[in-house]
């Protein structure tokens, strides 16, 4: 069974600085997708960034980028130029590409990010 581990329950960063959130996962599959979701107090899960396992190039979305290490099964999120609006709970999620016609997401336990002005 696949598992996702986020070892940092809480992180803090100064506004305009850079922070990295860690995520490791375990799977026997060779092809899969990884996601980072943001959940502000409004509760809605918002997709931040996605990565396909078959792509070696790390995904980037504006101030957000990932460091995907497939052999180490590591998928960290880097937030550059942190803004107050980045404060939220961040979840790392895994989805297998095969194994049934479903897109079930497996989530980690989350990292609560605080942004200090």
């Amino acid at each position, binding site marked *: 069974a696949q598992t996702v581990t986020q070892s940092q329950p809480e992180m803090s960063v100064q506004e305009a600085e850079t922070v990295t959130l860690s995520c490791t996962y375990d799977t026997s599959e060779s092809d899969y997708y990884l996601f980072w979701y943001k959940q502000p107090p409004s509760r809605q899960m*918002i997709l931040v960034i*996605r990565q396909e396992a078959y792509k070696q190039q790390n995904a980037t979305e504006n101030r957000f980028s990932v460091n995907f290490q497939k052999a180490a099964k590591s998928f960290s999120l880097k937030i550059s130029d942190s803004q107050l609006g980045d404060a939220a709970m961040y979840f790392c999620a895994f989805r297998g590409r095969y194994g049934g*016609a479903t897109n079930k997401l497996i989530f980690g336990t989350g990292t609560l990010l605080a942004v200090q002005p």
Partner: protein
Amino acid sequence: DAGVTQSPTHLIKTRGQQVTLRCSPKSGHDTVSWYQQALGQGPQFIFQYYEEEERQRGNFPDRFSGHQYPNYSSELNVNALLLGDSALYLCASSLTRQVLSNQPQHFGDGTRLSIL
């Protein structure tokens, strides 16, 4: 373009009661998944509905059941409520033909269920 909508926003029930939560998927989506998010935890997959049938189920007891209507909207029913059922229940929608792609699920704001 309406996103995923869930109702109600909050709900308070007592142990032993039954509850129904509702979800309307994003326009154009035909697949609905339900997740349970306990306080301080990540969401846990309950089940997924497509073509009005349960396609896959997570590790949840039979007290949790669902339904999908021809318009793709869905309900989550929980019987014989326990204190441990207190959680945020999230609905997510997607388009099945995009299942094997990197297209993400779209989430609603959730229903906060409190059991007294």
